[in-house]
């Protein structure tokens, strides 16, 4: 059984900084012992949050890639990839708000994108979680909790 712990987007008033969402969910011990597939967990969170279920569309990434993508998706606009919308200091602050929900162990990282568009000359493919023109999500899990956040973009 998964339980929603916090709507991080509302609690931290993140709508001041980007359009999207951010939530944290816990898994009970039995569920973590059963080793349910990460993508299934993420799909369950998406279903709860009214987002599209993408299954294998979740791509597992390394911490380093996730860190870079998190910074870039918050710092730059999704529709105009070269346009900075938040300072790096503000981005660091937002990321610290999101990640403080997790411990430092067993972190797993996923994204709904097949690549990082800032490193692909503005080109890339993804699986949409929303009906927005663009959206990008990073999900991070530790042994007991998940944080999933996403940003939407319109031209």
């Amino acid at each position: 059984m998964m339980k929603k712990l916090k709507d991080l987007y509302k609690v931290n008033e993140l709508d001041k900084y980007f359009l999207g969402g951010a939530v944290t969910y816990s898994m009970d011990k039995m569920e973590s012992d059963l080793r349910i597939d990460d993508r299934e967990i993420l799909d369950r969170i998406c279903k709860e949050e009214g987002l599209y279920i993408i299954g294998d569309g979740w791509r597992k990434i390394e911490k380093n890639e996730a860190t870079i993508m998190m910074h870039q998706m918050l710092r730059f606009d999704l529709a105009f990839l070269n346009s900075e919308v938040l300072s790096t200091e503000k981005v660091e602050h937002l990321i610290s708000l999101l990640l403080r929900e997790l411990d430092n162990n067993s972190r797993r990282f996923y994204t709904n994108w097949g690549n990082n568009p800032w490193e692909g000359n503005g080109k890339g493919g993804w699986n949409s979680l929303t009906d927005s023109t663009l959206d990008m999500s990073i999900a991070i899990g530790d042994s007991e909790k998940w944080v999933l956040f996403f940003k939407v973009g319109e031209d």
Partner: protein
Amino acid sequence: MIKRANTGVAPDGSKRPTPPPYSSKFESSDKVREALQNTGPGTSGFNPSSTQNSFVQKITASLPFGYGYPSGGGSKVTMYSVQAIYSKVNGVWMLKSMYPNP
């Protein structure tokens, strides 16, 4: 376009809380055609994986595709790039949005 740049209200009346960084338009229908012919299925840069349902492409040319205004006001910006976004609907790739980009 200037209203969009300053208020976030789109041509269809929808509004986002903050305007996008730019409000842009194509210079002519020929430029729209050029952008369509160089993006999307069948073009060299269009290579989504079979599991993906959305794809974005950016192309740049030596002559401008259009122009735009930055949000909150400012001078007209000539735009040499285009960003095109496609999504797969019932197995068919469809254009979702396409706009000049600085």
